[in-house]
């Protein structure tokens, strides 16, 4: 089977290493070119992409090399390509666009500016010893996902492999109805960023483990349990090869079917006992709370420590975009919030203050006792 080809535009010194790193994985094939002037580049891309490439990788600051003719940045080129594809309804020009740069440059010239974030499907940093296998797998999945969406545009059920009617009807409302138009990129980017990456109808492995009450690290049986819970709750729609997710509503149903009990009402210890009893997978260990937490009615995770949390002891994390009603917030533990690891949501300031006072007065009591 031939590999999926990406075109990579970059003229910085580390570009060759990035290309080789990605190619060495054997997962995708990357061709590297130097940037040309904007008009030339845009025109050339149109030909190149049509013929042989399924995706594009752009260095953020294509204008950084004084010797180069390129006087533009990745967002302006991406914007032109997205616009072009949109006005011409040109399916061939719909492909994933990936952004790469150094952490410093992303912080300086990208992180503060939100309007261009929607243009890109994935971002990776060049200077943090890139995990090429992981990046290549993501890129492959994105390209495959775009192709699949193109071929099945009228079948949302098939794209996400779930009956849309079973989900909150607001999730996909903007893509449904008569005379509704949208680009492949709109839909692909919505599925990846809103459905897959934000917790809500779909949850990741850590949150899945929190809800099942299981400590992943200590449980040798975790992989077996994942296998047990794969059908029908694992997400198998587009991008599933590189982004593993599980349907949160189906998890509740499956647990209820299996044990006759409702998952949210149980402690981690009870959940794990029931799992062991009904699945006969023995090597499962219940997760325990963080030092400053006491409850094991886990439902979410601490984004900083990546361990289970009871929402009663969770503090909403800062977000630059409030979740839709069908999505969930991300949380920080009291431990992380008090250690100033991560940024809290402004609405939690007062509550965190109360908790802090409470903990301090306890410490004082202990010292004076």
């Amino acid at each position, binding site marked *: 089977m031939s590999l999926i080809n990406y075109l990579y535009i970059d003229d910085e010194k580390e570009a060759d290493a990035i290309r080789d790193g990605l190619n060495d994985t054997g997962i995708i094939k990357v061709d590297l070119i130097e940037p040309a002037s904007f008009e030339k580049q845009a025109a050339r891309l149109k030909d190149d992409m049509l013929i042989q490439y399924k995706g594009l990788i752009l260095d953020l600051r294509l204008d950084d090399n004084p010797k180069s003719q390129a006087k533009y940045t990745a967002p302006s080129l991406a914007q032109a390509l997205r616009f072009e594809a949109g006005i011409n309804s040109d399916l061939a020009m719909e492909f994933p666009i990936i952004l790469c740069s150094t952490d410093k440059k992303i912080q300086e010239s990208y992180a503060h500016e939100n309007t261009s974030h929607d243009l890109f499907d994935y971002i990776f940093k060049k200077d943090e010893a890139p995990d090429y296998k992981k990046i290549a797998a993501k890129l492959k999945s994105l390209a495959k996902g775009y192709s699949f969406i193109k071929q099945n545009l009228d079948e949302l059920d098939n794209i996400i492999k779930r009956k849309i009617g079973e989900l*909150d009807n607001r999730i996909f409302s903007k893509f449904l109805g008569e005379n509704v138009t949208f680009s492949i990129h709109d839909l692909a980017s919505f599925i990846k960023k809103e459905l897959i990456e934000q917790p809500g109808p779909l949850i990741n492995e850590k949150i899945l483990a929190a809800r099942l009450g299981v400590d992943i690290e200590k449980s040798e049986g975790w992989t077996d349990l994942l296998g047990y819970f794969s059908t029908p709750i694992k997400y198998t729609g587009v991008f599933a090869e590189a982004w593993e997710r599980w349907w949160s509503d189906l998890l509740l149903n499956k647990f209820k079917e299996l044990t006759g009990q409702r998952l*949210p009402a149980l402690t981690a210890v*009870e959940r794990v006992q029931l799992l062991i009893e009904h699945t006969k997978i023995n090597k499962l260990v219940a997760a325990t709370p963080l030092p400053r937490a*006491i409850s094991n009615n886990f439902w979410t995770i601490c984004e900083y420590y990546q361990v289970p949390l009871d929402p*009663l002891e969770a503090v909403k994390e800062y977000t630059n975009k409030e979740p839709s*009603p069908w999505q969930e917030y991300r949380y920080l533990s009291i431990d992380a919030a008090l250690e100033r690891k991560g940024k809290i949501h402004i609405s939690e300031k*007062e509550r965190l203050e109360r908790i802090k006072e409470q*903990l301090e007065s306890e410490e004082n009591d202990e010292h004076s006792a």
Partner: protein
Amino acid sequence: MNIPHNVMPFRQQRAADLESFALLLEGVGFSNLHAIRDTVTLLRDKLYGLHTPGTTDYACWGYKINDLTIELNSLPRHVRPRTIHTISIVIDTDILAKCDQWETMNDPFIKMNFRVKIVGIDTRRKYFTGFHIDKHTGTNHPTEVHPLYHLQYAPSVAKGAGFGSLLTLDTPRIMHPPVELILGLDLVISNFLPETWNKLKNQPAYLALQKKYQNALWKPYLLTLASNWANHDPVTWNRFDLCPHFN
């Protein structure tokens, strides 16, 4: 499964009301109302059959909602122990009713249970309290007085949590008109989230929903009680069931 032709339109109407209700709540900052959305979907689903227990009569509507969680963003007054820093309210409700009993002068529900669990937490442990409003449907005849619809203070202490210095026993069952989610949550919000309640009460759509359900569920209840003193012709409900203190 044989659903009578007039039942689906009726269920559609209840589903539409619940959907508007959820939307109004989201408008004032509620999130995680999946449980209501799922109920809406079920009510609209022809394959989801609700029937009178013990028969094959599908002329019913109703729903079962579990673990609908409301986080209180500020603490209510007089919370004790004072160390509690966070409180959340968890609602379970289970109702079943015959469609043709809607807006009549008779008992609207076959089954009705609205359970409110309140959980507080400090840095050492969790604390529990709660109450429920339900319809007494037991076939046994307990000696304690049971108004047909009553509110009872009843803390739902989690298994194994211990009772601390809490004394629990059957507390008085206080007469309360029937509720379902729309009326029941109004009671919870008005008591625990007064600011939110004021916002909701400024919205005609919210008031209209309350009025509709009060009319269907409270009017027969209260007119039946009133019939103890004044003659209300249409009343067919037994007032002695509602208020065993009448004689």
